[in-house]
């Protein structure tokens, strides 16, 4: 697997595109609204979980600041619509802001080794939440607490459009994972994760590598956040810069399998299922999610994929898909 550059076979791309196309056709054939909502959330979770997996699983950066990326991008997009920037530009502007923010942040947090890194990143969404409570970038009446904003100028859009956007992004995130992990960047990351010192000695620019990864993760998570809040129609600080997002992303990745390419895919299905199942017990939802997280981490550190890989037919199947 490692050592040589892999050429992605067309069958693999088909493996992504065919299911995506089937899902994309669902609204055309009048699938129930609730189904579309499930799949929309699945696509958003999958994108974000992929990026967290890239950081925590493949780069050893257990980031707890993903809400900062999705929140900043969401805010950029929403505030953009208030000052006349169309939403489709806003989404990309949001991704750029998130990427720049991750660049700014990387200077601070990459001086920290593994143990420090997580707490350093954990502070960031907390600080941003306070910033957006205190700071109201553009005028307008107060909606909710602090800087709450409705998205403007999207009257012509239907939920189907958001659905397609999210699906497209999910496919893009899967392709990014595949390409990154098979590139020199992915190879370098594997070397750094196994032994940072010897990788550096062998000529890997560890800092640069981590910055690139962090920026990719920031931008793509930002895209997902912007699309999520476009669909949501409303953004405010306390739900945006919230640890619940972090929990969902970690859970989706861990249930599926950290450091496996198919993990976030399987995990995100479970995460959506959990989201709607636990909605009825919202008071207990974090408790239950926390227990699931701890139990899975202890019982099967590689999640569902770890269990599946013990099965022969699964190994044959993924072996076929991977090559």
């Amino acid at each position, binding site marked *: 697997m490692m050592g040589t550059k892999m050429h992605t076979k067309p069958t693999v791309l088909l493996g992504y595109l065919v299911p995506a196309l089937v899902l994309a056709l669902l609204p055309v054939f009048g699938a129930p609204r609730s189904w579309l909502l499930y799949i929309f959330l699945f696509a958003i979770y999958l994108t974000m979980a992929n990026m967290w997996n890239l950081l925590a699983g493949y780069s050893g950066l257990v980031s707890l600041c993903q809400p900062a990326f999705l929140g900043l991008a969401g805010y950029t997009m929403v505030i953009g619509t208030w000052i006349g920037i169309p939403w489709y530009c806003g989404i990309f502007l949001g991704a750029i802001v998130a990427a720049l923010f991750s660049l700014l942040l990387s200077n601070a947090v990459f001086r920290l080794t593994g*143990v420090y890194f997580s707490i350093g990143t*954990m502070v960031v969404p*907390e*600080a941003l939440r*306070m910033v957006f409570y205190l700071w109201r970038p553009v005028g307008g009446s107060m909606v909710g607490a602090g800087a709450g904003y409705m998205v403007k100028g999207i009257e012509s859009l239907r939920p189907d459009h958001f659905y397609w956007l999210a699906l497209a992004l999910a496919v893009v995130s899967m392709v990014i994972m595949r390409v990154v992990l098979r590139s020199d960047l992915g190879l370098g990351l594997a070397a750094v994760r196994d032994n940072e010192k010897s990788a550096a000695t062998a000529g890997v620019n560890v800092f640069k590598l981590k910055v690139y990864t962090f920026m990719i993760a920031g931008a793509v998570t930002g895209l997902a956040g912007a699309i999520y809040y476009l669909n949501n129609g409303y953004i405010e600080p306390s739900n945006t810069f919230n640890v619940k997002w972090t929990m969902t992303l*970690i859970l989706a990745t861990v249930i599926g399998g950290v450091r496996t390419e198919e993990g976030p895919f399987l995990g995100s299905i479970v995460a959506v299922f959990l989201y709607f199942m636990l909605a009825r017990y919202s008071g207990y939802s*974090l408790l239950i*999610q926390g227990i699931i*997280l701890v139990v899975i*981490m202890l019982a099967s550190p590689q999640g569902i994929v770890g269990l599946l890989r013990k099965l022969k037919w699964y190994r044959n199947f993924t072996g076929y898909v991977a090559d």
Partner: protein
Amino acid sequence: MSGDILTPILMGVMLGGLYALTALGLSMVFGVMRLINLAHGDLVVLGAYGSYAVLTMLGIDPILGLVITVPLMFCIGILIQKYLMSKAVTIGAEAPLIIAFGLSLIIQNANQIMFSPQSRGINTAYSQASFHIFGRQLPMIYLLDFIVGVVVMLVMQEFLKRTYMGRAISAAAQDTRASKLMGINTKRIYYYAFGIAMVSAAIAGTFLGMTFPFTPTSGTTFLTIAFGAVIIGGLGSMMGTFLGGIILGVVQTLSAHFLGANAQMLVLYVIILILLAFRPQGLFGR
């Protein structure tokens, strides 16, 4: 700007004693097990709720109530180390962090279920009282915070220096393998170290609860403060942590004084991030 700057400085210094105490458990677990306990803040809040429950349900003064909450927290610490953390470290580098993160949300949510998301405070006669110094009237509880912070730290230092258990903990912190070879049961030492960290969390939580109102989600704030104090002081130095706590306390009260109560935590967070960026080895580190 208003003139009286001495009051916030005095209050900040006294508060710093408490912050150092909050940081003590975090730095102990890190020192011995090389593990940043992401759930430390929430365990401190659990300590605060414990004392709150002792006061409101049993009517026992929270300081006397420590007789109940301290052993309880000690046991919780041992259980966490025995059943979660000791297993987590064998899985991989990320596992302890992820498990601690899960634990943190479990405790948060459990506190919320038991005590509701409402803001609570531990109110006693002395937590409302005040004292006079330099012609200024200051809250009595701040003085208590400082005294307790200093006393617990001194006791801890003596414990680590003079008792067998304390020396064994220090030895394990310095070199686990070598201490194993010397016949120290490091596994058990880890249990006790985590338990002792939770004892300090219980005391810190009780006094924090008497000083500030708290909610189930206050843990993140407390963890950040504890982490900040440890970072400023440089790891492993108790004196440094103490100074770090005081610096953070003064920064917080001064920014509340000049920028308003809403901005004080933000200033604290930003300062911690800047410190991380430019002096991750701490102000007093090499």
